[in-house]
């Protein structure tokens, strides 16, 4: 067992999300993630932080890292689940998938903070982002700033791909 007095006070020291420990962990162990600047804690199943929620993947397919998901309506009374959407500007947007998740499995979703997101088309720096007609991908919000916007791009791409983004905590509706 690694001691908390080692590695800058974290069980596994300083790491990126991609280099997170994948075996031998115990619940409660930690590392400092330089991708999102968060202390990541192992909960026995996932590496989690304050930015994450866990929902069941009911999309019918495997959700990939940085897919954009919405909360599923009409789920059961005992589970909260997520799916992808092909509706532009969907106000049910929740956040982005942090770890690939099989259909029917628990899916970790980032709902705030510095992360990445799949985009359906060219995206400029600073663009306000919302859901698109491409399942699991974001697009630049068209028209007025409105519900369904979940964050802003902090990098750009010339076509479909991924961008860095700020995910906003959800807003009060007016």
């Amino acid at each position, binding site marked *: 067992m690694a001691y908390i007095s080692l590695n800058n006070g974290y069980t596994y020291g300083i790491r990126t999300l991609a280099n997170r420990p994948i075996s031998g962990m115990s619940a409660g162990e930690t590392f400092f993630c330089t991708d999102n600047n968060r202390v990541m804690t192992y909960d026995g199943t996932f590496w989690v932080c304050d930015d994450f929620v866990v929902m069941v993947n009911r999309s019918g397919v495997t959700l990939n890292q940085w897919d954009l998901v919405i909360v599923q309506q009409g789920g059961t009374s005992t589970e909260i689940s997520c799916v992808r959407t092909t509706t532009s500007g969907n106000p049910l947007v929740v956040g982005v998938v942090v770890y690939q998740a099989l259909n029917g499995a628990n899916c970790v979703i980032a709902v705030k903070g510095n992360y990445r997101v799949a985009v359906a088309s060219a995206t400029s720096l600073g663009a306000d982002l919302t859901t698109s007609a491409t399942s699991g991908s974001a697009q630049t919000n068209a028209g007025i700033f*409105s519900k369904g916007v979940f964050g802003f791009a902090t990098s750009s791409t010339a076509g479909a791909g991924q961008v860095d983004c700020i995910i906003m905590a959800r807003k009060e509706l007016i």
Partner: protein
Amino acid sequence: MAYRGQNTKYGNLTTSQIATNITGMQVGDSVFNTDYGRVDFYTGSVWTNNNSITITAGATITEGQICRINASGQAILLGTPSSNAEFGVGICGYGGTLGQTISLIVCGVAKCRVGVAGVTLGQYATISSTAGSIVSTTAASIGALGRVLQTQTSGNLAYVMLSFIERA
């Protein structure tokens, strides 16, 4: 098992003390911020926490100022109420100058810079005519960013419970 007598490397300090008194910090170092009752972490370039995001500054930005994202993907001061008021993203926790990394508080409680009119406990905080500063109003409108938790006069910092308003 090794035990620690203190939960953070630098102990208990205010935001101002953290920003000015600590030197030699390394990635992952921690300090308990007594302004907010939370643990702040050093990223290698700025102090941040679980309620904040980090971003490059597009101008000089100081603690408590309201920011938006510009077309370069950088943080700048949110302008007047009639200009993109709904684009407010967060409140500067730890500031910096053009090109430096700063942290913006995007949820929870934040200390906000008060504009010329002062703010009143319980009212809605919204952006003022002074870029980056707040005033308080009795009704919510687009551009409101939360509820004022502390009556405060112009030029000071007031605690605000953040709840950015979304346009339906």
